[in-house]
């Protein structure tokens, strides 16, 4: 059955029976809509409409219902209720809830009911009062599950947009922090907020974000992934061009670099853009730990990024085409362990890697206790049995395990899964053209990344194109007193972050 929208521009008539009838038709078969009818004084019929479960009953009782009934009583004793200007009188003097608005259109009434406001209609008054007494079950602010840290704040975003905005606002107490609200989704009417620091973020980028967001016309936005795929630059690329995070401190750190955040109601994942490849290799903790440790950890990450992408294909290439490159003893032991294996290295590797991916996927989807059982059975038992049965060689198990661990070292999950997927074409290149094929594959990936842009920022900056001053925060992380300037690509307007003389020095001796 086609849904019948109420006629546009229909006004609140002021005749309560008529308005109520229309609303009841609109909300028929919606058991969560509550129509609370009562009398204002002795004569004036009134009705309060709200969604059960989306309002806080305590606020409705104490801040709306009680003052209204008391007011009705008082008026009754004096001279009866006068209808002219009643709605502003109620708004200004009676109802104690903090946010009250008035409106005259039925469509407004419906919208306000649906977002969780309490709507008050009074017979004889052709205006409706929209009283905000929202309150629903929310998850508490918890430690984010996907971005755990050893050192750093333990707060993560929740599914509630306002809570998330608060978490950001508490970290940036400045009017420069702008939060532009909008609604996306014809049916879902999801609240979305574009947030940035005025004066730091590039106006052109913000305008581009607004433009791309306004293009979106879809039935519903259920997760930030919808928005990501609808606004990214190269929709056919395997690389993520927009970062996401659950951590308010991370998004604030990015806002300070001149980036733009997009918060979406009903999901704890906020989008960060524009983003570069190298930013996805950074964890928020890098900036909280001591800089030498962070630098070493970053180098480790890049090393294992290369391993995650290339180790199986290098192994295949060496075993298939370039055996002379292996040291003799290693070659002998590799050959000995492969003696019983019936497959060529490429088939063996593909077999193992695909089963590893399957194990990982099974572990994610299954309930936690079962998931552990699957990974133990899969990794230990099958791996061990496969080696002793002579189906795969022991070195291949080692290679696949190291590669698996390496792929989890990449902080951004979407980046990690990209690298893991790219491993497969690389393995096929290695199996067909050896090291030459691996090299062509790497060149192809680099060319592809060089062609990408995220909201105008080259994906491989600041390495290509080179911005020498930004190298302080790519492969290494300089101490905080060295981070004098913000990144060149996103914060051209306001590059200076701090005084240039913050390096602590011991006081001079003597005196």
């Amino acid at each position, binding site marked *: 059955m086609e849904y019948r929208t109420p006629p546009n521009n229909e006004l609140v008539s002021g005749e309560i029976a008529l308005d109520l009838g229309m609303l009841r038709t609109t909300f028929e078969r919606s058991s969560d809509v509550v129509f609370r009818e009562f009398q204002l004084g002795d004569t004036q019929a009134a009705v309060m409409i709200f969604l059960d479960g989306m309002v806080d009953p305590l606020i409705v009782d104490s801040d709306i219902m009680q003052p209204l009934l008391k007011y009705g009583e008082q008026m009754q004793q004096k001279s009866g209720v006068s209808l002219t200007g009643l709605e502003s009188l109620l708004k200004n003097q009676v109802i104690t809830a903090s946010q009250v608005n008035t409106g005259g259109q039925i469509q407004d009434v419906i919208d306000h009911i649906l977002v969780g406001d309490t709507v008050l209609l009074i017979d004889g008054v052709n205006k409706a009062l929209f009283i905000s007494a929202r309150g629903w079950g929310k998850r508490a602010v918890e430690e984010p599950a996907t971005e755990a840290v050893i050192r750093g704040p333990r707060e993560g975003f929740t599914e509630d947009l306002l809570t998330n905005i608060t978490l950001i606002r508490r970290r940036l107490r400045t009017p420069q922090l702008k939060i532009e609200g909008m609604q996306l989704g014809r049916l879902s009417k999801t609240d979305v907020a574009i947030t940035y620091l005025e004066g730091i973020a590039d106006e052109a980028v913000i305008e581009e974000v607004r433009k791309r967001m306004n293009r979106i016309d879809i039935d519903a936005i259920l997760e930030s992934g919808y928005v990501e795929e609808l606004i990214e630059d190269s929709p056919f690329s395997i690389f993520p061009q927009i970062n996401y995070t659950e951590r308010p401190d991370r998004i604030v750190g990015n806002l300070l670099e001149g980036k733009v955040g997009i918060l979406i109601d009903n999901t704890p994942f906020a989008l960060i853009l524009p983003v570069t490849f190298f930013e996805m290799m950074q964890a928020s903790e890098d900036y909280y730990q001591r800089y030498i440790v962070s630098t070493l950890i970053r180098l480790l990450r890049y090393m294992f990024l290369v391993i995650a992408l290339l180790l199986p294909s290098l192994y295949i290439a060496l075993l298939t085409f370039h055996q002379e490159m292996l040291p003799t003893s290693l070659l002998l032991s590799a050959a000995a362990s492969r003696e019983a294996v019936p497959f060529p290295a490429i088939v063996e590797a593909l077999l193992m890697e695909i089963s590893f991916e399957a194990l990982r996927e099974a572990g994610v989807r299954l309930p936690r206790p079962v998931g552990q059982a699957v990974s133990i059975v899969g990794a230990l038992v099958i791996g061990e049995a496969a080696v002793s049965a002579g189906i795969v060689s022991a070195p291949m198990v080692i290679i696949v395990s190291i590669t698996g661990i390496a792929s989890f070292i990449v902080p951004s999950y979407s980046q990690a899964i990209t690298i893991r997927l790219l491993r497969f074409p690389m393995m096929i290149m290695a199996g067909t053209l050896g*090291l*030459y094929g691996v090299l062509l594959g790497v060149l192809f990936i680099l060319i592809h990344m060089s062609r990408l842009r995220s909201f105008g920022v080259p994906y491989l900056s600041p390495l290509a*194109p080179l911005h020498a001053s930004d190298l302080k925060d790519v492969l290494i992380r300089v101490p905080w007193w060295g981070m004098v300037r913000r990144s060149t690509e996103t914060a051209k307007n306001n590059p200076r972050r701090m005084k240039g003389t913050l390096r602590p020095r011991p006081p001079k001796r003597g005196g």
Partner: protein
Amino acid sequence: MLDRGKINARQAGFLMFTFLLGSASVIVPSSAASFAKQDGWLTIIFAALIGIAVVLIFTNLGLLFPEQSIIQYSEIILGKWIGKIVGFLYVLYPFYSGALVIGIFRDYVTVTALPGTPAIIVSGSMLAVVAYAIRGGIETLGRVNELILPFRQLIVLLIIVLLITDFKWNHLLPILGDGIVPVMKGSISAASIPFGETIVFAMLLPNISNIRKVRRSYIFAVLLGGLMLTMSVLSAILVLGPSVVARLNYPAHEIIKYIEKMGFLTDMDTLGMTLWISSGFMKIAIFYYCAAVGLAQWCRLSDYRSVVIPIGVLIFIFSIAAYGNLIEDAVFLGTIWPFFSFPFVILLPLLMLIIAKIRRLGGKRAGE
């Protein structure tokens, strides 16, 4: 301008540096040593001086017409008909050189790393990746090169450091024992490949954002590229001796086999192959790009991307036809190519520069 992408002078200089190392670091040591024996490394120094002259000629010419490529301003300088013919020569030159380089690398890879693989698979897959890069425009080439260059040069330096224990310094003696003539002969060969080939960068001038700085960064690129080439010739001669170097096809490749440290770092020559492929890749890409953009400009097309695939197929076929085998090519490059390329590299640009000066053409920005 067909490719609206812009690179800065530094990126252009980096491109030229990689371009100079491209195929030359593989083949030049052998030809240098065959001409000048133990003085082979000196040939590069003279060749680099010729390279600087080439750069000066084409940048002086290009700066007169900063928003046009050599194919476009040749028509202004030489008139419509002769200009068209000269312009077409500058489409053919990178096309032919590109096919030659693809041929060199195809043989190099099949000989050293993939003996059982059909040669056309090697060149075809390489050209496919290059074509993808070229469709991304000059920006993509500049960025990829900028990204790879530091890592590649670090490994090259590491290789040279690891080879130091194998250097036998008396291989260099006697210095100039046969006089200067063989050095001069050798430097003519080295001047045509790679230094003369830099003429194709005349095609890229309109795409450079800070064009006034470009001459300096090109000269730096020639000097540094010359230095790196000198080092590669020098280390080949120091390790193997001039007579062996002259007889080998890929001496720079062979010397890596001499690295033997801790019983673990042995036979790394295939790794060396990946280094030269990554620079040769850029060289092929630049030739291919110049041929594609040049043809599009010559035909006055609105976009060069439509000719990328056809040019690639032609280069692929031509590289099979024109490039027979190693020996044939070594003779061709050593004896015929220097004279064949001389008009493209020096004669025509110099002529155009003189005519432009006499006719007082250019020097103004377009639209003024």
